[in-house]
């Protein structure tokens, strides 16, 4: 009986440990992968570590995360401890009141705190960036310190401080030599909590930062389009560092205590080290603070250009090149979707150059948010593929310069999918031969585009009846085909050959085909979404010349070549596009897709009411999964 219990307990513990640590181990393992895949191990290499060190944006994010974590931990620990001590001596009513108030930020959803802080800083006209982020972190870390220190203060004999002063200690000495040593376990627990809360905060940081200051979680979040093993490398380093720190803090005090108890004379030196430690800590704060500030301010005096682009959508070394060439400073920030970009603009954030997609550009033009391009500065205009200049979102060709473009198609496994079935076009997604073998792209507009095209309607239809039919198409597909709705993990899954086919963007298709030679790509004859992302200049932009120069710079042939190599989509620059089509991606059907089908369309801006209708239908499709 006993023995049985033992086995059960061991099994339980093993499962717990596996659940906790296996993901971490997998992450660490794939940081040494020689290829870009996060699921397929192709060989051991330090490639991603090298890349990590050379990636300025990640390194500066590491710096921001860690410096903010350290400073906010130190400050919130001091604040929290003082508050806890003060509270224990306050009147009961005040004490209860403050302790309850203190719980608010802890229980509040992060998003509420974040929005509150964002509004707070905007209303005070404090420029978003390092300082607001630091202040916010101090604000949300302090309650955790108070919560963990206060019980220790309450349990402490209050005469201890009196005893110290009675023996000749000044109030400050009583604090440092008696009260703090007594509270050490609580203070330490609070410190650790504060440090972790600060280090892995995303939501609050995301809302209060700006001017290109990003911490690790923001960078990773914006990378979500294409997570690459650099993040694994970074995680591995962080895990190792944290483990080493934890081991140190757990082992060193034990050793110190041993020494201390055995000498009996160690007290004097211990008291001395405390003072030194305080000085050291304040030193660290000061240095980091100044560094952080100068980091925030670096490039002061130079002209500044603020660029807002999708995550992983530029080779950042190009930004350095541009800065050198035009002796300016580029503040580069990223978003994860057109919609979140729009929200950020609405919140009052100001940028000079944006890179939105077609339908979003239409909206921005409609809302008079853009200013015309100065074509006299765009000397590389002729480098752009001719037909990209004709479009519906910017009919007069005043505001936009194409950046990357492509189509939506189906990537399939040649060994599984019958060539003949491809003639069905989008309807292949309803072919029950491939039931349970299909990835759909988890995107409302693209999914409806597929259904509408399959039904022979325009993907920009304004008819609710047609949307309703498309909805039924999607329901039917869902119920008969058991598709899996995925995000960008579709790439890894297809490279691993997990399913027969998937709806993908052409650039992503080109990438997966390159990694798995069994795959191919086709564009259904019923037409598809022919998308284009463009560079635009906002009406807020003061450095218009620099903004135009930046756009022109991105159109340079060698620049766009470097950029395409990194991003992997089809460049708007003709020479680059052709070079990749005929060289690197030769024979890859997803590269340079033939977008000559007259049935192809580009997304148009959707009116709010239709958009909401569409969104509610899409929610139903996804929520009624069997």
């Amino acid at each position, binding site marked *: 009986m006993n023995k049985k219990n033992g086995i059960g307990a061991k099994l339980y513990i093993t499962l717990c440990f596996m659940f906790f640590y296996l993901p971490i181990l997998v992450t660490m393992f794939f940081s040494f992968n020689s290829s870009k895949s996060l699921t397929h191990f192709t060989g051991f290499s330090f490639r991603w570590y090298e890349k990590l060190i050379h990636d300025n944006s990640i390194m500066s994010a590491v710096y921001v995360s860690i410096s903010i974590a350290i400073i906010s931990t130190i400050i919130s620990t001091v604040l929290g401890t003082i508050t806890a001590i003060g509270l224990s001596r306050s009147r009961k009513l005040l004490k209860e009141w403050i302790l309850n108030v203190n719980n608010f930020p802890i229980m509040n959803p992060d998003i509420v705190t974040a929005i509150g802080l964002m509004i707070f800083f905007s209303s005070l006209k404090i420029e978003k960036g390092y300082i607001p982020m630091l202040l916010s972190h101090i604000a949300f870390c302090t309650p955790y310190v108070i919560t963990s220190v206060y019980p220790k203060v309450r349990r402490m004999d209050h005469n201890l401080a009196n005893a110290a002063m*009675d023996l000749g200690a000044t109030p400050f*000495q009583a604090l440092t030599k008696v009260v703090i040593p007594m509270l050490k376990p609580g203070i330490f627990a609070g410190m650790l909590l504060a440090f972790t809360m600060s280090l892995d905060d995303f939501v609050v940081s995301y809302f209060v930062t700006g001017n290109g200051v990003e911490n690790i979680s923001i960078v990773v979040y914006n990378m979500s389009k294409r997570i690459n093993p650099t993040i694994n490398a970074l995680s591995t380093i962080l895990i190792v560092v944290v483990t080493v720190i934890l081991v140190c803090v757990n082992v060193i005090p034990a050793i110190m205590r041993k020494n201390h108890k055995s000498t009996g004379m160690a007290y004097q030196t211990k008291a001395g080290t405390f003072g030194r430690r305080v000085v050291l800590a304040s030193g660290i704060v000061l240095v980091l603070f100044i560094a952080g500030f100068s980091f925030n301010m670096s490039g002061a005096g130079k002209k500044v250009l603020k660029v807002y682009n999708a995550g992983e959508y530029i080779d950042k070394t190009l930004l350095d090149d541009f800065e050198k060439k035009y002796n300016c400073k580029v503040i580069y920030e990223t978003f994860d979707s057109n919609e979140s970009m729009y929200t950020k603009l609405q919140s009052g954030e100001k940028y000079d150059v944006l890179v939105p997609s077609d339908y979003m550009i239409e909206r921005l033009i409609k809302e008079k948010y853009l200013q015309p391009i100065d074509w006299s500065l765009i000397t590389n205009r002729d480098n752009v593929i001719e037909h990209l200049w004709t479009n519906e979102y910017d009919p007069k060709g005043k505001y936009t310069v194409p950046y990357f473009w492509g189509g939506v198609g189906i990537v399939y496994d040649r060994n599984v999918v019958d060539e003949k079935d491809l003639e069905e076009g989008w309807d292949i997604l309803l072919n029950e031969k491939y039931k349970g073998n299909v990835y759909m792209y988890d995107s409302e507009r693209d999914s409806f585009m597929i259904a509408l095209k399959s039904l022979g309607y325009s993907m920009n239809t304004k008819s609710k009846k047609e949307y309703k039919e498309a909805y039924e198409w999607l329901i039917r597909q869902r119920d008969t085909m058991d598709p899996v709705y995925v995000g960008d993990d579709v790439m890894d899954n297809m490279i691993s050959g997990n399913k027969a086919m998937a709806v993908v963007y052409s650039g992503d298709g080109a990438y997966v085909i390159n990694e798995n030679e069994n795959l191919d790509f086709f564009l259904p004859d019923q037409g598809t979404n022919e998308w284009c992302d463009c560079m635009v200049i906002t009406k807020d932009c003061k450095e218009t010349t620099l903004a135009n120069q930046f756009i022109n710079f991105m159109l340079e042939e060698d620049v766009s070549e470097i950029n395409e190599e990194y991003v992997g989509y089809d460049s708007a620059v003709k020479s680059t596009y052709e070079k990749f089509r005929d060289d690197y991606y030769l024979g890859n059907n997803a590269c340079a897709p033939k977008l000559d089908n007259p049935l192809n369309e580009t997304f148009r801006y959707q009116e709010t009411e239709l958009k909401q209708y569409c969104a509610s239908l899409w929610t139903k499709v996804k929520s009624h999964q069997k």
Partner: protein
Amino acid sequence: MNPYYIKEKKVSNTIIEIKGLTKNFDDQQVLRGIDLNIHENEFLTLLGPSGCGKTTILRIIAGFEEPSQGEVLFSGEDLTKIPSYKREVNTVFQKYSLFPFLNVYDNVAFGLNLKKVDKEIIHEKVTKMLGLVGLQGFEKRDVTLLSGGQQQRVAIARALVNEPKVLLLDEPLGALDAKLRKEMQTELKKIQQEVGITFIFVTHDQEEALSMSDTVVVLNDGVIQQIGTPIDIYNEPENRFVANFIGESNIIEGTMLDDCLVKFDDVEFVCVDKGFKKNEEIEVVLRPEDIKIVDLKDGQLRGKVVSEVFKGVHYEYIVQTDKRDYKVHTTEFYNLGIEVGMRLDPDDIHVMYTMEY
């Protein structure tokens, strides 16, 4: 009220002078005008029931509380302006308040370390002090693992090693068991005589106060009831409160007929008290051990033994007379129910003013 006076035991200088001291906590007055002189080398005890204000006086002297009104002079200097860490007094706390993260040696050396005294001198002083309190060889012990008595000694050593002019002790024996408390009483007295400084001792235990002190200050409700030597306090309580609080007594209302003549329970007694008005209403204190049980015919008072309790050294009887019950202590044995007489010699009778409230 009677003018309080201090019996000058040894002629010595006043070290602490308290004048008109009051203390209010919120709307509650815990000290109502304390006047007190404390002398060098004196073992002074503040005695009173809990809540009488005795600890507050101590905390004001130590500097943990500020007086609401009045003066505290230390060697003639205004003490209230000096922060607690600069005062030449040290305290032994009720629950010792030792520093649990330091060992015995470092606890005792705490004050000297703060003064940046040379390490060798510290070592010498701490060792000597641990010897004085009988804790040689305990230097490296963890204070949290010591017994109550040992912690008590560490607390005393920690305070005394700083060579204060006055040592304040806040009910330091309260947490000890009866036997250990007796031992520590003797020891404290011995230590006080050895170091030769003023001890101000706070307690609610009258026996402790009587056996150790040079001077006892009886407090009640923030007012000093009586200041005097233990013998004065015991034998000549100035009012009903003191008489009741110190030892056991029979307190009887009576009339002062003349100098050295008092009448109570319809019987006239010769006494030694003078200076009262004629026919003044007074109270008489009779200590139970002063009442002598005699033959019925020899008794000034007569009554019946209605209760008998064995107390170890003596018996305690309740003798019922027509007027009241008398408590009597004697080593003789009397059967319950017998009629006895009681006699009082003149110096067994102590006359006091009637309490004014």
